[in-house]
């Protein structure tokens, strides 16, 4: 048994200390966003934020997380009240199958938290560990730039989605 802080809440988790964080998030806490992609730290689909840093949850055992703050995509916002990064990905339609997108967003979020105005080159370098197979890279980069702008506007208004008349 150990206590894990996820998205601002304490959770008592009954899992072996060698259990990768990804399985705890998905199986014990029933969170969907972090995805199993490789289990080898090669694709980034499982990326979450731990104490402000992007972390590959599939290769991070539970025992390393004592006292640390874990943030998943669910912790950023909701459909009704999306965080800037979520709103940006919606507005740029930056997904095809979307399986990689949660990991992309969490890595981008970690970047934006330490560098609110990243250059294109910085975004590329940051997202290098994360794979997208549908080829949505251009939209993902545009969405990160848009999120940066949205975070900038103090009174970010609610999501305005283009909708059919």
């Amino acid at each position: 048994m150990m206590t894990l802080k996820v998205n601002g809440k304490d959770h008592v988790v009954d899992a072996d200390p060698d259990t990768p964080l990804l399985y705890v998030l998905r199986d014990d806490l029933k969170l969907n966003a972090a995805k199993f992609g490789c289990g080898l730290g090669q694709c980034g689909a499982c990326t979450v934020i731990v104490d402000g840093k992007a972390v590959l949850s599939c290769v991070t055992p539970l025992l390393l997380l004592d006292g640390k703050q874990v943030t998943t995509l669910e912790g950023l916002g909701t459909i009704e009240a999306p965080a800037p990064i979520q709103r940006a990905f919606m507005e740029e339609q930056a997904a095809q199958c979307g399986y990689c997108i949660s990991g992309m967003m969490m890595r981008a979020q970690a970047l934006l938290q330490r560098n609110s105005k990243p250059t294109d080159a910085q975004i590329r370098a940051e997202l290098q560990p994360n794979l997208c197979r549908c080829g949505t890279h251009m939209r993902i980069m545009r969405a990160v730039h848009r999120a940066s702008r949205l975070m900038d506007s103090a009174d970010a208004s609610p999501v305005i989605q283009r909708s059919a008349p």
Partner: protein
Amino acid sequence: MNAPVILDRRRVLAGGGALIVSFSLTGAFAEEKSPPGVVTAPKPPGSLKDAPLLDSWIRIEADGKITAFTGKAELGQGFKTAFQQIAAEQLDIPFASLTVVTADTHRTANEGYTSGSHSMQDSGTAILNAAAQARALLVAEAARRLDLPEDTLRTENGAVIAPDGRRLGYGDLVAGDMLHVQAQPTSKLKDPASFGIMGQPVPRLDIPNKVTGGAAYVQDMRPPGMVHARIVRPPSYGAQLTACDTAAVEKMPGVVKVVRDGNFLAVVATKEFLAVKAMRALSAAAQWKETASLPKQDDLLHVLATGLPSQDSVIFQHSNPSAVGRKTLEATYTRPYQSHGSIGPSCAVAQLVDDAMTVWTHTQGVYPDRQGIAEMLHMPQPSVRLIHVEGSGCYGHNGADDVAADAALIARELPGVPVRVQWMREQEHSWEPYGPAMVTKLKASLDENGAIADWNFEVWSNTHSMRPGGAGCLLAAQHIAQPFAVPPAKPLPLPEGGGDRNAIPIYTFPNAHVVHHFLPDMPLRISAMRGLGAYHNVFSIESFMSELALAAGADPVAFRLKHLDDPRGRDVVMKAAEGFGWREGQKAPPGHGYGFAFARYKNLAAYCAIATEIEVNRETGQPRLLRAVAAVDSGQAVNPDGLANQIEGAIMQSMSWTLFESVTFDDTRITSIDWQTYPILRFNSAPDSIDVHIINRPGLPFLGSGETGQGPAAASIANAIADATGKRLRNLPLTRKRIKDAIDA
């Protein structure tokens, strides 16, 4: 447009619906010869021809609730949103007021596989016409009730409205079985000029959920009582399980069951990571006898072109002896085996309840996969239900069908319990059916005016579909103690073709000869991968066209136009060239190259032309795409942003195949088993820009665009590399090392 012929349902049913007498038909509509005096009714369009009842596609409840149904599976292409646009438009209802139900053997029509860029063409067309015909039936019913002529009525916002303002809601108008009628061959479709929803970049319905952590994939399912299973696959094709002491594994924490049936080995546990640990222990306990059966990976040219028996057929022949070639070029192009490489390994959930099996699956074909699973389980098909739930993008036949079979086989051992099977990364990489390796040999001559006088094209390839149907296509069914044999491979018939897809040139040549060498033996497990043979055939044809243009001293775009008659094709070529700023005789800056390529997918679906600029580092050989400009004509564009997204993705994915990817193997095992050993494109390879120009064709048929970019992107990049380096690379992938070696040669 023809007015709809609304037949009384009883009369249609009495006539069996198959023959409808005495339509005034033009010859073009009459597809089959009929006895004198009887005219066979033309078939309704799209998938309506196979599932002709309107309520297979559109249902309206008395409370006004409207649902559209498709037998196709949403794979991340975004067509679910497009279908909703189509139905809303033709029914004259708000976009958000209806829902779309996708592939489910208990609820939707059997539309076979979601493949070949057919979804818009088959299912989109069916929904378009079914919705239009449903609207016409509602108007007719309102006219009857109001005692007014139909042409005085209009529809708006889910109601039929009379000139005096009286409104009859669709829910009020719809009688129990009003839509349970045969579709008519033609529909009164709305004038595209009046469209308010079709043609708009409506945001995709699935994205908000996917970017906020909602349950969006079969991987996210957690039905009560669910257990987690993992498979221990054989280490290589044909390996036999000789011994496996399961006792220790069965005692591991959380382990519910070890399932062993011949060479099929799996373990079930209460929690996911306990299943992973038990899988590792079980894998260590299993002893296998392996056979060295794989060909030489570095000699695929000879393996395919001379080493395997082939069935040869001339698929195109055109002669004009007056055209005489003066200068002849020959070239051979090769493609390795390539992986679909889904980011999420395949996953399925299955549950056996009261002798009925339900499988939640990201298969591309719920009906054919059901057939295979039912056969494997020796169950009648109606007792097996397959429900499509999205998975990670598949781009063809990946492990989806196999993992569905795995889950069903294990669920049968645990009645009542939902079983989730998740493949591991190395299982997806080593067991998925790959895109087949291919060889093409081209030979052509230029006449004295620099035009192509004769063209010879030969392609060697396996089939490009080993999908179920039969149980023998499923890994689990192959591995159990009473196995099902892999069915013999068949070439996919033209005009769509498989290995010969796009092998027939779209250009007009005085003399042309195209041969398909079909290779029935499959040393590696292969099946359908996005574009099938078109990827390599278009890569070959469009590389060779640029080689010929160079030999003729002609501009590559002008050279293509010189041989291209198809007016829509010409429009697409010119649009891409214009968008790129292509100028005849232009010279790229030092170290840069310009490339161009064009194809019409299958020679009958969407048109796509792509111009690229590439930079090549001469010291390292490293190529980088700087910009790509595409033009696409896929007929009536329903969701232009979705279409652009597909083409952008096609360029990126094809670039990844083209620059980086080949399945590797030794004489026994697949050795490309993860992203380290099978590298794909990452962000450092993303270009500065991709522009997609859509040539919309309002009112023309949907052509399907999911695969049209794969071939042109590959050839355009290859042509740009040749322009940058002066060296032509013909063996895929065009790796940094191969480019460097070519520069140094």
